[in-house]
């Protein structure tokens, strides 16, 4: 089993703590002039997303987390699991609702997603930064308004609701920034 020494700590390093995988956000070396050194780290729990601070004695080892980030293609959902495929190996992976939570309202079949795998299971599914989705419902709005001021709600084919300019109509395809949930342009 691979381990990391505290002197290998750097941001992005992933290790196990209390049976959960964590990723280091920040690492600070602390050393009193006449005392022993330790590492203060800010770490993110990769299962829950929660950020905590921990202090390790210098020279201690932690167990490396078997965590891999990869790109998988979204295939379909059976209502309980969301199924993905590795486009190279054609291997399939099933993500539970906790893993897909944030991405669920943005992705549609055949989208490529960043997936964090832990021991071979999807831990976090991230939607692509930009997605293009069809509008299934929105108020017709005023003809000739090109200012876009104010905007209106629109429902996308995935069920997500975003604000779009008044001139955007049903059945049009729009580009959305999934990080902010904002309309970018007509696609």
């Amino acid at each position, binding site marked *: 089993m691979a381990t990391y020494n505290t*002197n290998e700590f750097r941001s992005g390093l992933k290790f196990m*703590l209390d049976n959960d995988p964590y990723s280091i956000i920040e690492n*600070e*070396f*602390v*050393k*009193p*002039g*006449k*005392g*022993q*050194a*330790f590492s203060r780290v800010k770490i993110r729990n990769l299962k829950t997303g929660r950020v*905590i*601070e*921990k*202090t*390790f*004695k210098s*020279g*201690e080892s932690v167990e490396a987390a078997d965590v891999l980030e990869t790109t998988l293609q979204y295939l379909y959902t059976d209502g309980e699991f969301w199924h993905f495929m590795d486009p190279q190996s054609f291997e399939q992976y099933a993500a539970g609702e906790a893993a897909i939570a944030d991405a669920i309202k943005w992705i549609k079949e055949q989208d490529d997603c960043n997936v964090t795998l832990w021991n071979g299971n999807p831990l976090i599914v991230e939607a692509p930064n930009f997605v293009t989705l069809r509008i299934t419902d929105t108020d017709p709005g005023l003809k000739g308004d090109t200012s876009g001021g104010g905007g209106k709600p629109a429902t996308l084919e995935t069920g997500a609701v975003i604000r779009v300019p008044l001139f955007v109509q049903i059945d049009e395809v729009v580009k959305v920034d999934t990080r902010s949930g904002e309309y970018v342009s007509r696609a």
Partner: protein
Amino acid sequence: MNSWRPSASIKVLQERASLLSEIRHFFAHRDVLEVETPVVSSSANPDAAINPMLSGFCSPGSHRSQALYLQTSPEFPMKRLLAAGSGSIFQICHAFRNGECGRLHNPEFTLLEWYRIDYDHLQLMDEVDALLMQLLHDSSSAAARHRYADLFLTHTGLDLFTAEYVQLCEKAEAVGVVIPESVQTEWLIEVLFELCVGPWLQQQKGVIVYDYPAAQASLSQLSALDPRVAERFEYFFEGVELANGFHELADADEQRRRFEAENLKRQRAGDEQLPLDEHFLQALEHGLPDCSGVALGVDRLLMLRCGVDQIQEVLAFPFERT
């Protein structure tokens, strides 16, 4: 790449020059003699928490290199001068510590170290405070003084001297410490001080912490009144550890015992044991006058004076750019 450039601005380097000149002026005014001692030595401080950097020397015509250590502080040669009758002395020099690199650490750094004959640690605390009030322009008032055990009790709720091992472990776990498999009480106390008292210190200007626990005596005398504590102090400014001072241990046998205990700690940790400075021990046998001494981190002082956050911002060329 711009890595050939200094990481400190020219303005900060000018500030460094005036800081050094103010320090020299302070001591000249008080009749403290400036000295220089060798940076390399065939012996080293065995302190298990400090690791020296290695150098070497080949005598003329020889290809065999004799191991030399870069000093981790100028303490031993300066004490040899004191034992030889130098009177009160100060030195501004570079010191080197292996494995120390971070926001407040560069492996090569500038130390101001000085010794005062016939001073105890309390008198030296007054002088450190006087110097820092001059050098830190926004610190016009004297530092607050607190005993280590008092701060420990206030901020951890635990009595330094009577707390049980399990209580220390529980408190440490509660503040986010990942407790190693075998851990010494000493380490738990150090880490709790850092995590519980540290944040409070960061909100203060100057604070002098004194009467350190005897386990952290290092090279200081134990208190004659209360042998649970050592006559050692530290000066913190906005939480940054700036200076560490001792009423100096003068007992050669006790000094050798502490050195050997440190070497034993090194051996247990799987580190190399270090050759002891026999010249220094002989000087103690000859007789070190009663004195107190303190080492002050000049780079950190400059950081505080310039209001910067990273030691790299006050060094012409930090370790990464050497």
